[in-house]
């Protein structure tokens, strides 16, 4: 790994975690800044590239693994959390992060999100929410407003109330829940570092504008605001606060203390001993 030597700092730089692949994203996409936040977080933690696995599904933000220099698995639509769970359960010593969008995570992958939250495997899910399917050119997602009429697929609006990912994560039992905004990669990096360091399943909901299909999201920079409370370890308290929140409060909502799920096993029998059980 390239190291950066200054007077008193020896460690990796964010650039060490970037590949030389140019993202497919539109100019101005929020995901560029999230990628910057991710690599900054990795550098801050000094993660070993060889011991770090990033997993994604399908969508604009799910392209991130190839833009990093760690091990990655770009899988199929909606299944990233299940694939990542397999990685972490089989190899607990690896650092596992998952990247994806609102459609991948909450629509086709909704069931896995529910169970990843309650299973509480020690990994960190960074979900970039732009309230639209961008890769298929602008359809409503589970976080799109019911009256958003800009999609050819639902010209009268989806007509279905959106879900609130942070509330959903809390309801499903996630152990660490935070929200960030892509315009502030330093804060995104801080939330990711906190999430990775916190034991169990961490959900980092990141508002990441789609300037192509939701150009009005450029205004998010004046909509977001600090959540304004200290993180709690009490899911009930966090949930009450989230229900009062307008969906744009930034910060850490819950840093809970549920024990991560990680079955342990040790070889105590040989296969020959097990086979003896079949002998007549």
């Amino acid at each position: 790994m390239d190291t950066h030597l200054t007077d008193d700092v020896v460690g990796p730089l964010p650039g060490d975690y970037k590949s030389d692949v140019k993202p497919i994203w539109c100019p101005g996409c929020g995901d560029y800044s999230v990628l910057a936040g991710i690599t900054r977080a990795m550098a801050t933690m000094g993660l070993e590239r060889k011991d770090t696995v990033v997993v994604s599904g399908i969508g604009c933000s799910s392209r991130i693994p190839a833009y990093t220099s760690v091990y990655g698995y770009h899988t199929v639509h909606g299944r990233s959390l299940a694939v990542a769970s397999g990685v972490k359960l089989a190899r607990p010593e690896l650092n596992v992060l998952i990247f994806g969008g609102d459609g991948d995570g909450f629509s086709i992958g909704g069931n896995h999100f529910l169970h990843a939250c309650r299973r509480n495997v020690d990994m960190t899910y960074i979900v970039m929410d732009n309230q639209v399917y961008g890769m298929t050119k602008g359809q409503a997602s589970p976080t799109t407003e019911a009256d958003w009429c800009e999609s050819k697929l639902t010209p009268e609006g989806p007509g279905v109330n959106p879900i609130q990912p942070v509330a959903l994560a809390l309801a499903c039992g996630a152990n660490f829940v935070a929200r960030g905004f892509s315009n502030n990669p330093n804060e995104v990096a801080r939330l990711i570092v906190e999430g990775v360091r916190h034991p169990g399943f961490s959900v980092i909901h990141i508002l990441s504008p789609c300037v192509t299909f939701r150009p009005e999201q450029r205004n998010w920079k004046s909509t977001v605001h600090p959540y304004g409370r200290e993180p709690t370890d009490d899911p009930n308290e966090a949930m009450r606060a989230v229900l009062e929140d307008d969906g744009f409060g930034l910060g850490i909502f819950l840093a809970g203390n549920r024990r991560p799920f990680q079955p342990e096993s040790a070889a105590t029998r040989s296969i020959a001993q097990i086979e003896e059980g079949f002998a007549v």
Partner: protein
Amino acid sequence: MTVDSVTIALVGSGGAGAMTAGQMLLDAAANVGWYGLMSRTTGPQIRGGEAAALVRLSPTPVHGPGDRFDLIVAFDWQNVERFAAELPLSEKSVIITDPSQGEVPAVLAASGAKQVELPIKELAGRIPGGRVNMVGLGAVAAIVGLPRAGIDAVIQKALGKKGDAAIQASNAGIDAGSKEAAGWNLGLELAAPNKEGATRWNISGNEAAGLGALKGGVKFCAAYPITPATEILEWLAPNLAKTGGKLVQAEDELASIAMCLGASFSGVPSITATAGPGLSLMTECIGLGVASETPVVIVDVQRGGPSTGIPTKSEQSDLNIAVYGLHGDAPHLVVGPTSIADCLFTTQWAVHLAEALQTPAIVLSDQAMGQSRAIVDKPADAPHKANRLLATDLGGEAKYKRYADTESGVSPAAIPGMPGGEHTADGLEHAESALPSSQASDHQKQLDKRLRKLTSHDYGDAWAEVEGEGEIAVVTWGSATGPSREAVRRLEAAGTKARLVAIRLISPVQPEKLAAALDGVTKVLVVEQTHGAQFHKFLRGHYDLPGAVSVFSRPGPLPIRAREVHETLLSLI
């Protein structure tokens, strides 16, 4: 006079203990040196409902169900008409019936089978804690000549923890049944057992598949319960843990296959087991395994389909989805065990092949093998282990290429933990570097190599079981192999040479090997358990079958019996 094989059905609704009695009969027969097979037929009920234990015993290895039932012992006749078609009888058959349970149903009585009354319920009622199934077991023991010592050992093992009262009640029930049946002389005394030879095992197909996974080196399983595959998962749960592996229950089959791919991506050999509905859900991720070259083994214990179909009964009708179910050109491995014991070999081989060729392998077992239990000679140890080709020259000047276009088509894999091997595995088409590419040349190159690694591999003799000689051949697969083998041997015993080819390696196909196996054959009979003759059409699509080709194809749940294959062969000669 003794018989060389006896086929027995123990029939009773839930609570009668027919399954327990059948299990004890098989175990006792094994103890004294008989071979045997016990399958089960049940309705959809969770507990209770109609059920029958179907047991065949013989001094020689049992390949499949008997031609018909020699003996039925009925504790009651509740709902028996629902599976009467699975109980073929003849006028030589014997039905033991309890007069308190009413008349023998017409559908069975019409066979002309001899009816013998035994007041099973009354006899059991006279014994404190007595149970009808033990009375029935005692009667069967007397009829087939099962030595009492064999039963005693089973009772001690099964009831030892329950104390003397339970053992005494069981013994008294067995004694009562045996005493009644002792003088009947029904002509169903089985030829003397033979304890010579190899150690014998008492194993089900699902257990054998689980053991094959362990022996192949599997260390991870993600599980979602489904009939009739659940026993594989339940067997693996404790036994993986004891051998340093892990089993995790997933939220659905989409997750179980995805978790397996994740574990395998990180270098840990992985397996899951399912049935048709679950396999349908898994197909997208199996395609990801093909494209990202991530090994994984899926055991599909087939049941009647389509849709929910007949969950508790067997069929071979997942052949098409297993071979053709993935979108795109997606070559992968499909193998089919040829017997209960072979579920071990074939699953172990599948683990080895999947890892060696870095691709998914589907093992097509079925309910008839998975949920049946057999007394078999201990299977020989096979050498097949998971052994993935790993990259060795990482960290040098040249950047690692995950999907390098090698001569064999197999690219050395880097797994997390290996410095210099960092890459993003991808279901998007990619260049050798693993970076996404939609270029025609990359697509062609990667399609070529993913096919080449399968077609150029040397599968050795395990691709099929090839037996016998002569100009007529049965070509079959899976659980249709047993009755086909028995039919071929009957033909041979009567002086007509015949061949059996049971194809274990379904995909990739082996045209040269089958052509050699069928060299000189003028008549082929294809035997399979589907409605649509899927195997026959598959063979037609990929192989040149010599001479006149006939097909014996029938859907489940009726098992294929040796007599039926034998009669079909006779009609062809």
